[in-house]
């Protein structure tokens, strides 16, 4: 008789905290083109469920609308957010 495990789920560990440098899979500009790729940002708010990430360039929804304050939200367990693999990218001054 085939069995599968009980329907209770695992308790997810908390992943991201405020200040973490993260990459988010989102629509943004690369040169002259709009791309859907990983973009670096900083976690500006986080709880056990949600993360808010601030970017320093324009980001867009999948239907093309720009997100005004460059803040995207994601669930803590979303596969569209990960700890950044690159060092912090400094903004050009002036």
């Amino acid at each position, binding site marked *: 008789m085939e*069995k599968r495990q*009980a329907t209770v*789920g695992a308790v997810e560990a908390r992943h991201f905290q405020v200040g973490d440098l993260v990459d988010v899979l989102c629509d943004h500009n690369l040169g002259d083109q709009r791309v859907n790729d990983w973009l670096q940002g900083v976690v500006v708010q986080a709880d056990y469920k949600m993360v808010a990430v601030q970017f320093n360039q324009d980001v867009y929804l999948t239907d093309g609308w720009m997100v005004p304050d460059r803040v995207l939200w994601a669930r803590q367990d979303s596969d569209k957010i990960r700890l950044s693999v690159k060092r912090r990218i400094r903004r050009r001054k002036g």
Partner: protein
Amino acid sequence: MATRTVSRRGREVRRKGPVEFPFTEQDVRQISQRLQEPKWLAQRRMQAWEAFQAAPLPSVKEEAWRRTDLSGMPSDRFILAPADSLRVDPHLLEPLAAEQHGALLVLQPGAPPRLEGDPGPEDSGVVLADWATAVQRHPALLKKHLGTVVDHGEGKFAALAAALAEHGVLVHVPPGVQVGQPLHSVLWAPGGEKGFFSRVLVVVEAGATATYVHETASPTLGDNGAAADHPTMHAGTVEILLGEGAQLTFVELQNWGEHVWNFTHERARVGRSGVFNWIFGSVGSRLTKNFSELSLEGEGAEGRMSGFYFADGNQHLDHDTQQNHLAPHTTSDLLFKGALVERSRSVWQGMIYVAPGAQKTDGYQANRNLILSKQARADSIPGLEILADDVRCTHGATVSQLEEEPIFYLMSRGLPRREAEQLVVEGFFAPIMQRIPFEAVRQRLEAVIDRKLGGGV
């Protein structure tokens, strides 16, 4: 002369009536002998057995069962047998709260019960015991209280549980004792084509305080309809007594596999100035019929009932609640919230009863349902029966679908639709989740929501 050939299609053969259960009087006697029960308890079992035999299987002609049809229940396939030896889901054994790891009692029919930790300081007299231990060491408690809250005459399944229960939990908190750590018990009963029966008796004496979590669970058997091929049943009773000024938080989580037909009769009797906080979580089983009754018997008693249910597939969850105000200045507050996906169905039928003379009573009941699939259905039937003239009783019921506006706002922050919908559903349940005093339990339930939404929205 040419002859015409008339072909006739035979009618589908249908069962004419309910199928008999395979249990016998000999089963009742054997259970009683195995537990080495005293004569009075063995006699009570036999009385319950007689009540079970005398009662017909509930039918949709009865009001309480009008929306829950048992005619398809394969009663003849439920055999008294030990549970499979599958190890207990480790998530059920985790501490309820990081800094609060009280006593844990694990019951698995066919295996010795396991008690970890101490229910309270050694000299406090707090009892958290499995049924065999309760029968041997605490017969006076059982004799005094067992069956005084839920009588075996209340229904066929209450009688069946009283006659055949071999597993159960006794919780006793002596007068004035404050139990700091939560008490936790788990009934884990994996297996197909079996019948499991349990009893829970909780007695919190005058001035005592406790928190108790009771979980019933099993894994679903197989996929692709295999669950229907190996039906199993559970019938149980839960009896709760709160003395004068006692306080109890009771969290009850039902996560049976989706092959289990589950029936429970539960009642809490709250004494003068007692405070009872009752929290239900119901996410499992093929079919559940649950009778829960809160009886506020002493002046100034308070009770809160918070229910959470989430059904998917072909699940049918039926909760029948009753809030009895039997004394003046009593307060009850009921909130049941449920979500349904796929072809599942829920029934909530609630009643507030105010007895003559129970003046200055404040009773409230609300049932909110979220329908997430076209084929899902929720029936919500609130009711009031008031026989006093200076009371405040209100009720409400809603059945609704996901609103687009909050989903739009979440999507405007880059969340995919699916995640946005999950968040809105979690927000819908938040008022109930906040009443569960353990983070680990909340997160487990949220994980169940996520899993069920994975196949639903």
